[in-house]
């Protein structure tokens, strides 16, 4: 198996001793087919056990190992070493506070996720006796791609609006709001609009589109947010120009 010497430049921060973060260089022999996460594991096992980072599934499903790799938000388990030349610069996800080394604090995202009520809010509660809440394939396709989000937060690290205006609810949370709004079994749009159709919600988005470009699950948050802007505008028009038709 082909091997190569990989140079990693990793941003380190220890809250107990450091006031600033600084880069540390590692050189490690890797297999050619490895991903960046494998290289970090090798560093931790054989060179520096104090290096901190999150990971779990190693198959782009859990969304834990998001980090900036050469300035691009990536899942470390999905970034192949063969696609990089020279020194690979690894930093924690941008726009999130650094807890330690490559570990960031996701508290803000978790709080925002909760605010958009990302779960089914049915018109009426159904008992189990009533059986399945059926949906046609067409109704499923309306929201299916938006349900693929793995909450990895790469879209937040790519979104300059979130970086500059942290109160922005952000791409993934708003996309999940859209996902449930589009679900034929859901009746919770009005509740979600209280958060989504605000200046902190979709109207903070200026359609940079970076969220969709970096999403490892091929979700298109930019499309979800633009569709929410259109439907919110239609709400506004109905309310102000056709008050008789708004309800």
């Amino acid at each position, binding site marked *: 198996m082909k091997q190569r010497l990989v140079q990693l430049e990793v941003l380190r921060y220890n809250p107990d001793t450091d006031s600033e973060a600084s880069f540390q260089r590692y050189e490690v022999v890797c297999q050619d087919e490895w991903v960046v996460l494998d290289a970090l594991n090798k560093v931790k096992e054989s060179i520096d056990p104090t290096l901190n980072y999150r990971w779990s599934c190693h198959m782009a499903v859990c969304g834990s190992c998001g980090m900036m790799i050469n300035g691009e938000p990536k899942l470390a388990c999905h970034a192949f070493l063969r696609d990089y030349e020279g020194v690979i610069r690894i930093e924690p996800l941008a726009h999130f*506070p650094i807890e330690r080394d490559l570990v960031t604090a996701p508290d803000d995202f978790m709080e925002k996720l909760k605010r958009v009520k990302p779960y089914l809010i049915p018109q009426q509660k159904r008992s189990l006796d009533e059986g399945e809440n059926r949906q046609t394939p067409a109704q499923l396709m309306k929201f299916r791609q938006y349900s693929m989000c793995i909450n990895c937060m790469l879209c937040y690290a790519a979104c300059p609006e979130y970086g500059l205006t942290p109160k922005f609810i952000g791409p993934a949370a708003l996309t999940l709001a859209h996902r449930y709004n589009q679900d034929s079994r859901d009746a919770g749009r009005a509740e979600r609009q209280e958060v989504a159709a605000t200046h902190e919600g979709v109207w903070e988005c*200026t359609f*940079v*589109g*970076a969220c*969709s470009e970096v999403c490892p699950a091929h979700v298109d948050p930019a499309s979800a947010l633009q*569709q929410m802007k*259109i439907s919110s505008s239609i709400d506004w028009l109905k309310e102000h120009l056709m008050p008789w038709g708004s309800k």
Partner: protein
Amino acid sequence: MSRRPLVREVPPTSWFFRHPRYLRYMAREVTCIFIGAYCVLLVVGLQRLAAGQASYEAFLAALRSPASIVFHALALVAAVYHAATWFNATQKAMPVQVGEDFLPGTVISGAHYVAWVVLSFVVLFLAGVF
């Protein structure tokens, strides 16, 4: 062990140099300045027209100056770029579902380009070009 997360600020005036995709976004946004400036020019033209024949002819003469021609060339390039970027973005904002499938994005964007061409010909027709 203490919890003391380190916050890294985003540089407010230079963040868009961090990645080519941000520069593309800024190019889309900045080109709207030319469109705004051209709208102002049209309003000034209307105002000169209302002021009388001599005033309007002076305005038309000013439009033939080299500076005006350079501005119009720049405004045309900026307007085409601005329009194209938004037409290309329409497929995200206005997906059309037919049964279980969505129309290809190129159809949505393409329809906007076709409408653009048709409307341009209508404007040229109304202006007496044909």
